[in-house]
């Protein structure tokens, strides 16, 4: 046997990626394949499960309606282990399968950052959910966002607090991870723009066991409203409880975690009356209601933003493939970016040149433990 470069390569590949190749062999060309990177293991494993459920519901709908380009659409999943190197490996593993036409990326910004060089090299559209504004401004044309980015969450929190609640002196509490710091930057910039003041900028490390110093700092700052970006459910619950125990009753408008299922359950009464931004709110639109109904058929937990964005991404992506009339990556990308007025579970998608599809947020309220839709704030600039 002559040892060609090709055979060496495929041999090496076979050793390293044996399971993938097996799966490869079973797959057939009669389907359109979409790769999806999600957390099956690690701290965010649960969220990964939700994301997959959302994507599968959308897939079902698409396939029942005839699929894409007349073929059934198929999802190929890879686990990112909730780590950045894991995400890179998962993506490159998917990217190595040439028949995958587009990808669903991660909801975590740092993972998308880590995958970005590989994404650029692969040159196929990646629909992602991370909210770091920079991701769509790095000159990587293949990154297309399906959630409103943090400048919008900051703007919505600021606008609701200042204009609707009439509070101008803010205490901002944020985790010191990528999400929290990005959120803080967006919120403080928006506040400055509309003439409100940041009385306290208070970062905290994730998995803090105690928030007494933070609460006392809020007390002495003279702020009349709290804005927050929390990452972990138990952190937000501990903070909320200590806030109430130490007698702080200021209004509180926070990032989505304030109104997410777990913290609302953990903190109980301590979170009643708080406001949160939510890219997904069941009562915000008929489309969101429809998604909630479909989700309820397959899952006991209520849907949240982990599932709604993948649901929308699959929907938009398949529509774009049909519109493009081919699986050429460039054409699919153009078709997605030219999508206007697509009504998804998260809101109305109007893609801009950067690749951002959503430009607004819902404000929801915690009414004694139930989350109710308050209003939707949309920006056009």
């Amino acid at each position: 046997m002559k040892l060609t470069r090709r055979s060496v390569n495929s041999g090496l590949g076979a050793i390293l990626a044996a399971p993938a190749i097996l799966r490869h062999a079973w797959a057939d060309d009669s389907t359109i394949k979409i790769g999806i990177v999600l957390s099956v293991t690690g701290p965010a494993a649960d969220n990964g499960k939700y994301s997959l459920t959302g994507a599968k519901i959308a897939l079902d709908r698409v396939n029942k309606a005839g699929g894409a380009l007349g073929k059934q659409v198929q999802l190929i999943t890879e686990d990112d282990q909730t780590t950045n190197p894991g995400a890179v490996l998962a993506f490159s593993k998917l990217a190595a399968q040439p028949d995958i036409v587009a990808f669903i990326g991660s909801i975590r910004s740092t993972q998308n950052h880590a995958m970005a060089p590989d994404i650029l090299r692969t040159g196929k559209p990646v629909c992602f959910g991370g909210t770091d504004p920079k991701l769509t401004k790095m000159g990587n044309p293949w990154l297309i966002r399906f959630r409103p980015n943090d400048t919008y969450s900051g703007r919505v929190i600021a606008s609701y607090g200042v204009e609707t609640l009439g509070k101008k002196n803010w205490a901002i509490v944020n985790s010191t991870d990528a999400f929290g710091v990005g959120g803080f930057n967006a919120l403080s910039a928006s506040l400055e723009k509309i003439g409100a003041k940041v009385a306290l900028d208070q970062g905290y490390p994730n998995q803090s066991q105690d928030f007494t110093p933070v609460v006392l700092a809020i007390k002495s700052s003279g702020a009349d409203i709290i804005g927050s970006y929390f990452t972990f459910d138990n952190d937000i619950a501990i903070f909320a409880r200590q806030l109430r125990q130490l007698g702080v009753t200021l209004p509180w408008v926070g990032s989505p975690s304030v109104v997410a299922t777990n913290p609302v359950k953990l903190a109980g009464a301590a979170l009643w009356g708080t406001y949160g931004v939510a890219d997904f709110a069941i009562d915000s639109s008929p489309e969101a209601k429809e998604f909630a109904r479909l989700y309820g058929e397959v899952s006991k937990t209520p849907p949240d933003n982990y599932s709604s964005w993948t649901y929308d991404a699959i929907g938009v992506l398949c529509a774009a493939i049909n519109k493009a009339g081919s699986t050429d990556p460039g054409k699919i990308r153009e078709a997605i970016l030219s999508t206007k007025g697509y009504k998804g579970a998260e809101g109305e998608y109007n893609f801009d040149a950067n690749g951002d599809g959503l430009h607004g947020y819902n404000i929801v309220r915690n009414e004694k433990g139930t989350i109710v839709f308050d209003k939707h704030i949309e920006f056009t600039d």
Partner: protein
Amino acid sequence: MDFFLQLLFTGVGIGAVYALVALGFVLIFRATNVVNFAQGEFSMVAAYLMVVFAVDLGWPYWLAFAIAIAGMALLGAIFNLLVYYPLRNRSYLPVLISTIGASIFLMNTVLALYGPQPQVLPGWFDTPGIQLGPVYLDSQYLLIIAVTLGLVAFQYWLFERTLLGKKLQATSQDKEMAALLGIPVAAMIMITFVYSAVLGGIAGILVAPVLFVSIQMGSTIALKAFAATIIGGFGDVAGAILGGFAIGIIETFGAAYISVPFKDAFAFLVLILFLALRPQGIFGERVAEKA
């Protein structure tokens, strides 16, 4: 001044948690010369057992507590047999790595069985706390402080006043000599593991209502408790208790007056300073190797 008192209470409360976990470290270290990196996981497992018994199955709190503690005793025994005992004649290094393996195993087994969402465990008292002048005293923290002090007293009584305690002490000081004196060394080590699993379990069940029940709850506490153990001087019970309180207080005041984001670094900075300036700990352990 009001803030100061509030911070002091918080620092002492958190410190009591560290001290309680540190107590378990010290016992195992004294008996086996090994640091048990899975000590924090004892707390985590006990808290999950409580969630299963008291919340999911709805048993009365005291019954759930009793069964959870019995479960911890069993876990301590199994831990000794599978993680420590086969390695008892090797150096500290394999044992240390084995306990790290056990920590990974316990955390992820619970994750596989129970999923990653944090859980709620109700506290012992219906009243969440009392307002004492300007200071709010969380009832669960009051309980933690009381139990920690109670267990310190119990431990003193056990080691200084009972025959079993004397035997345990003899074992921890010189195993060969203890064996020559007819003390069943293996049994003493078994008792130590069981007791420290129970101690860790009590700590976990006590903090669960405050910190919620999560997979990571044990490891975050344990690292600080470990630092407390070293500041107190390895193998010194009183030192570990003081070390625990010291770290709780330093951390809380450091967060309040210096920086919240760097909060987690304070304990370790203090630790490194301590090692550089006073390696023998608060009360002093001989660090020198026996010639």
